[in-house]
Each structure stands twice: as structure tokens, then as C-alpha cells.
């Protein structure tokens, strides 16, 4: 297989040198995540946390039935989530299929909302590499400034790790200036050991973000798997100085859960990572729950879903 050239952005030596892979004890990891989930957040600070969560959301629609009309509605919601309260900020990005990147770009251009397109035969990744690379390049040409790719799980699970690595390097190159998120599809990997190995591999190959899931299978994001990936990010950061972001996606529907993710993030990587530049939520229904909570924090009254737009 042809070796990819080292992309300009990465600073590691050409040979993929992974941070110590090691092992992950599942029982202890899950216990630690459960413990962190019990951290309490002060009522007075809840509003800031909810505001941050909105700013971290990649508002997502990834359906076969997506149309320009659907994407237009999504973008309107992304730019102005709460029709009534204009102090509610925009989300971080919209996340769509490549064919809709153009429409999304037209809609959000100038608003600060990014356009993240999936690519590489999302969600399965079961396509020849040339096509996956071409798709990534096309997504960027069509208007995406972020690309969410999937790793080749077939290659990973059959032990062809170098091939997984090479694919990421090639896609990274094809993305050019766009920033690359690498989806591990943790729900298919079977063990936290595998999640850690895939995380380290993706980071060595040049990922700007590592992401848990496509959201198309269950389990999607969980607190323990997020903790596992954040620990891998920490190890890479300590060893090489590289900053890699993290994105849990799928299954995060309630503000309370999102706040738990922020607690795990804070406890593992510290406050420098509490920013949309380094952490995103891949979500759709989460946004409305956060908006409801924001309004409740401001008015003191429990909200009804009827009073928030469905997009």
C-alpha cells in the first residue's frame, strides 16, 4: 500500500510512534465515571454551564431523507436556537451529509456556525479508500470546514491497525484546512482497551478531534467511554504537547447528562478543555432540553416542549 506523505500540520516523526498503549480496567473506569457523574453543580452556575453546552453542540441531521429544506430549518435553529431569547448563543456547528454541505454553507456563512460534514462512507466506512478520500475532499470543496470521518472498523477489528492509520493520514491530507474529527464507533470496538488503542492511533495519525460514535448504533456515547478517550488525549498531550479535542455523540438527550460530561472533562483535562475549540456534543434533541432548562433557570417555571421549535 502506498505510504501517505506526512501532512504539514503534524509534528510526530514519520514512524507512527504511539503513546504507551497499556490497558484499561473496565470496572475501575466505570466506577470512576459513575463517581464523577455525582458531582453537583451550583444552581447559580447552571446557566453558564448550559450556555457553554449550547455553544458546544454540533447540531446534527444525518438521515437518508434529508433535503435542502430540512437542512435550512436546521441551520436556522443552529444560528438562533431560541426564537424568543436572543441572548442564547449559536451552536458550534451543523453536522450533515456531504451533498447538503453546500446548502448548509449558504445558510450559516458569516454567522460563526461551522459546517461539519461526515465523509468516508459514513456510517459504515466499508468503501475503498480512494472513494473515501475523494468524498472527504469533495465535502470540503462543497463548503464544509470540518470533516467527521469514520475509522475502518473492519480493518481495526481484523488487526490491520497500520491500514487504519494510513487511511486517517490520507483523509487528513485531503481535508486541507478543514479540521478533522475521527469517529471510532466505540460501540463496535468491544473493549475499552480497544477504544484506547484506536484513540492513540487516530491521534498519532493527525486527528484534530476524536469522536465516540456515528450515532447510528447503540451504545453510542457513554460517560466511561468518554473518560477512556479523554485519558488517552491527556496522555498524548502530556507526552507530545499536542492538543486534540473530543466529541461524544449519540445518546446525550438531557442537560443533566451533558453537565455530567462536562464534569468528566473538567476532572480529567482541566478547564483549558472547557471550550468549543476542544469539546463538542454530537446531538440533536439535546438542544431543546438545554433551551428548556435555560428558560427555566431564568423564569423559575418548568417548561413545556411545545414552546420550543422542532426543526
Amino acid at each position, binding site marked *: 500500500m502506498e505510504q501517505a506523505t506526512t501532512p504539514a500540520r503534524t509534528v510526530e516523526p514519520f514512524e507512527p510512534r504511539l503513546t504507551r498503549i*497499556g490497558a484499561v480496567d473496565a470496572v475501575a473506569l466505570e466506577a470512576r465515571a459513575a463517581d464523577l457523574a455525582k458531582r453537583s453543580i451550583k444552581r447559580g452556575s447552571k446557566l453558564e454551564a448550559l450556555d457553554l453546552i449550547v455553544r458546544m453542540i454540533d447540531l446534527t441531521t444525518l438521515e437518508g431523507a434529508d433535503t435542502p429544506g430540512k437542512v435550512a430549518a436546521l441551520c436556522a435553529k443552529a444560528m438562533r436556537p431560541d426564537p424568543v431569547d436572543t441572548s442564547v448563543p449559536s451552536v458550534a456547528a451543523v453536522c450533515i451529509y456531504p451533498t447538503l454541505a453546500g446548502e448548509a454553507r449558504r445558510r450559516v456563512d458569516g454567522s460563526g456556525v461551522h459546517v461539519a460534514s461526515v465523509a468516508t462512507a459514513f456510517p459504515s466506512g466499508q468503501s475503498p479508500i480512494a472513494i473515501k478520500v475523494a468524498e472527504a475532499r469533495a465535502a470540503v470543496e462543497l463548503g464544509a470546514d470540518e470533516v467527521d470521518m469514520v475509522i475502518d472498523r473492519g480493518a481495526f477489528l481484523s488487526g490491520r491497525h497500520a491500514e487504519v492509520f494510513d487511511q486517517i493520514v490520507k483523509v487528513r491530507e485531503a481535508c486541507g484546512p478543514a479540521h478533522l474529527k475521527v469517529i471510532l464507533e466505540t460501540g463496535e470496538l468491544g473493549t475499552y482497551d480497544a477504544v484506547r488503542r484506536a484513540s492513540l492511533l487516530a491521534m498519532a495519525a493527525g486527528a484534530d478531534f476524536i469522536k465516540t460514535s456515528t450515532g447510528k448504533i447503540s451504545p453510542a456515547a457513554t460517560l466511561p467511554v468518554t473518560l477512556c478517550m479523554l485519558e488517552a488525549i491527556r496522555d498524548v498531550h502530556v507526552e507530545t504537547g499536542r492538543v486534540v479535542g473530543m466529541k461524544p455523540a449519540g445518546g446525550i438527550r438531557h442537560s443533566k447528562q451533558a453537565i455530567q460530561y462536562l464534569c468528566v472533562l473538567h476532572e480529567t483535562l482541566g478547564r483549558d478543555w*472547557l471550550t*468549543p475549540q476542544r469539546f463538542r456534543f454530537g446531538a440533536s434533541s439535546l438542544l431543546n432540553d438545554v433551551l428548556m432548562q435555560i428558560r427555566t433557570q431564568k423564569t423559575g417555571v418548568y417548561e413545556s416542549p411545545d414552546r420550543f421549535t422542532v426543526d
Partner: protein
Amino acid sequence: MAELEPRTDGGLEWTYAPAPESRAIVSFEERYGLYIGGETIEPRSGEWFTSISPASEEPLAEVAQAGPEDVDAAVGAARSGFAAWSELRPAERAKYLFRIARIIQERSRELAVAESLDGGKPIKESRDVDLPLAAAHFFYHAGWADKLEYAFPNRRPQPLGVAAQIIPWNFPLLMLAWKVAPALACGNSVVLKPAETTPLTALLFADVCRQAELPAGAVNIITGDGSTGAELVRHAGIDKVAFTGSTEVGKAIQRELAGRGVPHTLELGGKAANIVFEDCALDQAIEGIVNGIYFNQGHVCCAGSRLLVQESILEPLLGKLRNRLSTLRLGDPLDKNTDIGAINSRAQLDRITELVASGEAEGAELYQPACELPERGFWFPPTVFTNVAQSFRIAQEEIFGPVLSVMTFRTPAEAVDKANNTAYGLSAGVWTEKGSRILWMADRLRAGVVWANTFNRFDPASPFGGYKESGFGREGGRHGLEAYLRFEG
């Protein structure tokens, strides 16, 4: 709780602020008498002392100082109580214990808050560890009460009579459960003396016994200082002694009981080695190390107070450990976010301080994360010593505080030698992903409890107790019943 402020880069400042558990759920009496023969009575000694909160030094309640006459009354009540209790059908004894278990579950939050107030441990621990385990111990032992012939086939087990039980201040209600549940399940009656600095949950337990309609005299609780305990052990009317506490006092008890033919079990101190191999799951090992020595402020007999690290991973491990220490939150025990609570007493704080000073004097290198200590109360920050030699006092003596001593080893055999090089033998930890090595180490470690890839795990079904000067006898499991029985076969 987190206090959040926006940053200019779109991120957030994040610090925690108090998240207090409400203390309104528990109300202490102004004064607690002795619980003897199912009644609360004034001490014949006429003496009282105050139990304070070690986090704030505020007084919580007055409790009785039981004198020799009070001890005598308690043993007498336990004698009649034994007659009534042992006469019941075992299935009926079981049902009383199930009731107690249920009531503890129902009053869990109240008891957890009381425990944290009186003893200083974080509510997170009393709520999530002490209370569930206490209820579980009663539940577990209730099930044995009418099945003893299965635990000891062909031996015709019988109760001993009046069990004198003396418990420490580090897990007051849980230690009460560890003692009272098996004693009652085996048909004995009990005279229990809780620790001087933590009598209150035992006195609330007396109320649980009342709610359960426990027959009078089955459980008797006498509060007091060390002299009360000594008086109890000296009493001619007791049939069994169970003690958990320091090795020093354990030896004194053993000397006192010499020649008297009174069966006794001792659960004493420890200086456990927590052994970390290079192939461990490192982040989880860090959690285990931290839990091993900072859980309950290190006031744990089986605490992993000596960290033996394989030399090849010393630096990365220490880096992660220091980083993790900086996230530990020390403060109000009733704050749900607190990891490290108050030191139990002025006396214990002085002891810890003295030993830590000796560590520095002997040449060890001290690390403590930046830690704001509250003004009132007894506090000690989490501490790590590196550059420690086996001979240093901090590596030999039980500190019973949040102080970890780090030493290195090169091979498994060397780790075993260093781990066993102590008069204690209560527990040990082994961290490696290699199964055969876990079992090889467990085979060779002279400790009553070996935790592999975990630490500080307790269960009523799992026998707990020490080798060597950490004591003898086991608590929990079928093995733990033996201490409370005599055998006709």
C-alpha cells in the same frame, strides 16, 4: 458544586463551590444515656463527656461515661438478654435481623449525615459505602441465623453467651454492624462500646433496635473512653471479646485475657503494600492508589499506605499521581463534592503531624498539593513521600492518616519481600494485567486480604482479617461466624 465564569476564548472557568447535604435530616438529643436492657439509663458514674464534630469543633451531644457499675449493669442485662434471645427459634432471630437491616436502609440518609458529622468522613463515603455495607451486613447475617448447621456440618454450633465488643472511630456504624450482626445471628447477646470520639451512630442504632422491637438486653451499648473498654474486658461475666483498634491496645487486651479461657478475636493495625507493576492499567491504578490511602482520610486499618512501584514506571506514575492529587477536594464533610474530610481528633492530627515531620527529618521528599485548610476543625492535606527507605518510621509505623510512602522494586520477588517485611499483615494490593502474576503474588503475600486491580472492597460475604500483628480471626463470610460459636461436635 461548580462555580463557572465565562472566559474570553469562549471557554469557562470552573471551580466547585459547596453542595451541602442537609443536616436537618438528623436531630441529636442533647444528651444520650446508656442503652442497657432495652432502656436508656443515666450512668451510675454520674459522668458525661461531649462528642464534637471534628470538622468544626462544635459540640454535637453529651454522652455518658460508663463506669465500672455501668459496665456491670450492662453485662448483667446482656446475660438476661442472652437467655431470652437464645431461646427464640433461629428463624425468629433471623427475622429480627432482617428488620434491623431494613430499618437501616430506610434511615440511611439520616445515619450517614450523623456519621459524617460525628466522625468527619465525607458524606459521599458514609452515604455510598458505610451505610449500604452496614445494612448489607445485617441482611447477610440474618440469613445465617437459622442455617448454622450448614456452615458447620456435624459440629452442633452453639452461641457463646455475652459478647463484649469494642470498636474504633474510623467506620463507627459499619464496625458496629460487623460486630453486632454475626454475634446476634449466632445467638449471642452483645455489650458494645463504641469509640470515644464517635458514639453517636451507635446511640442512633439503639433507636433502630427499639424500632425493630428487638428483645431487651440482646444489644446493650455503653459509651465511654478507653477505661470503659478496659473495664468491660476485665469483667468476669463476659463469654467472648471482639476488638477492632490499634495493635497496641489489642496486645493489652490479649494480655488481660490470658489464662481466662475467653475466646477473642482482634482486628488490629496495618501497613499495607500497594504493589503496582509496569503492565498495570495505569489510570485505574492511580484511582486505586488514591482510594487506597486517601479514602476516609487514610483512617483505614487496611489502607494502602506503602506504594511499591515497579521502577520502570515510577516517573509516569508519579506525574499522574501528583496531577490526581491536585483534583482532590478537602473540606466540609457534608459537602457532596468533598473527597477528603476531617481528621477524627486533635490527638490523631498530632500523631500524623509528628510522623510526617519524622519523614522529612529522615530524608524523605514530601509532596502536598496546594490545599486550603478550613480554620476550625482538624485537617491534614493529602501527602506523598518519595525517596523513602524501608527503615524510615513513615514506612514502618501505621500513620492512620492521608500520607503515602512511595518505594520502588524491580522484580515480583523483590516486591513480595518488601511487602512482607513488616510485623503487620492485614491487606495488600496488586496491580497488573497479568492474571498468573496476580495469583502468584497472592500466594506469597502474607496478608489476610489481597486486592487485585482494586482496593478497599468490602462485602459481608467476604472474610476480612489479618495475619501476624494485624490480629487474628475473620469477619464476614461463613468464616466470620466461627468467632461467635462454640461447638459440641
